[in-house]
């Protein structure tokens, strides 16, 4: 098995950094930042088309559906029903574009507008319906290990715990919960994909997530909201590589007391 390939359901992804397309100042900046990130998968949202006065610019003019695998999200949905409808529409859109992402979805069912925390009950309901309709489902969830396991058992193809609230830039607030999620969901199933999604603020947050053992990181605001998104995208690309290698390399343990790095014998004396 090629350890550089990330497998989610039937999907095979060569790059573990997933980048969002929202909140950029311009489409041009979005295009350049995505290129600098080196990502293969980009998330998109599904919204009502403007019926009057469309300014003519569509994100697809700046996002090559032949180069990127699009991952539609169900952002903005506060009920299972809305999320299910949105997922179906996303699949229909990607089939029309003949994009490799037709059939998968980042499932978000939100509980609250201010915190944008996921509604676990709605998420589970929507997951079950979408799995029944043949979707590959990547579930956005909190860092609650119990919920994470419930989603896996209900058929989630990937579980995506938040590091901190969407767009908050606080990074991985509870690495212990992320570690528990990784350990429990990968028990006897090492390749089950767990992707840290939400709250990533800067490069070190990405590295920390990968060092914990995450299979990938999904972020949007961390790049789009940076003063220089293209440079930040580049740094995220390096940060992911760095964290992935550090995890594979097997770090030293944390110790309370010192252990000398230089030999204790042969020191000159009186």
């Amino acid at each position: 098995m090629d350890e550089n390939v990330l497998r989610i359901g039937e999907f095979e992804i060569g790059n573990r950094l997933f980048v969002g397309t929202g909140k950029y100042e311009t489409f041009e900046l979005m295009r350049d930042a995505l290129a600098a990130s080196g990502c293969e998968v980009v998330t998109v949202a599904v919204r009502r088309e403007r019926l009057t006065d469309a300014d003519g610019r569509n994100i697809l003019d700046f996002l090559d559906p032949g180069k990127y695998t699009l991952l539609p999200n169900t952002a903005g949905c506060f009920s299972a029903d809305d999320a299910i409808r949105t997922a179906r529409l996303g699949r229909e859109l990607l089939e029309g574009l003949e994009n490799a992402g037709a059939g998968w979805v980042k499932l978000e069912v939100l509980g609250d507008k201010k915190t944008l925390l996921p509604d676990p009950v709605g998420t589970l309901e929507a997951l079950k319906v979408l799995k029944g309709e043949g979707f590959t489902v990547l579930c956005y969830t909190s860092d609650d290990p119990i919920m994470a396991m419930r989603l896996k058992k209900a058929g989630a193809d990937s579980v995506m715990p938040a590091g901190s609230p969407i767009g908050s830039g606080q990074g991985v607030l509870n690495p212990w919960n992320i570690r528990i999620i990784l350990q429990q969901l990968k028990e006897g199933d090492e390749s089950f994909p767990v992707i840290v999604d939400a709250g990533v603020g800067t490069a070190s947050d990405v590295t920390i997530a990968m060092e914990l053992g995450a299979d990938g990181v999904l972020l949007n605001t961390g790049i789009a909201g940076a003063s220089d998104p293209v440079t930040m995208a580049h740094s995220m690309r390096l940060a992911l590589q760095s964290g992935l290698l550090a995890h594979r390399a097997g770090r030293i343990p944390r110790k309370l007391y010192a252990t000398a790095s230089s030999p204790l014998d042969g020191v000159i004396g009186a």
Partner: protein
Amino acid sequence: MRVQVNGQWQELAEQTTVADLLESLSLPARRVAVEMNREILPRAQYAETRLGENDALEIVTLVGGG
């Protein structure tokens, strides 16, 4: 006839098809998806699907998002 499009009631001529509607809105079929009365309408059926009184349509497209 009155048809709801993206949450707004519109007055459309009888026999208007989904394809007619998209054309009148300058929306290329390839870049949108249509839900009619809560069910996905396959793109291949846009030209032959006539709208009726009180039909509810959602016409959506991809936008930026995280």
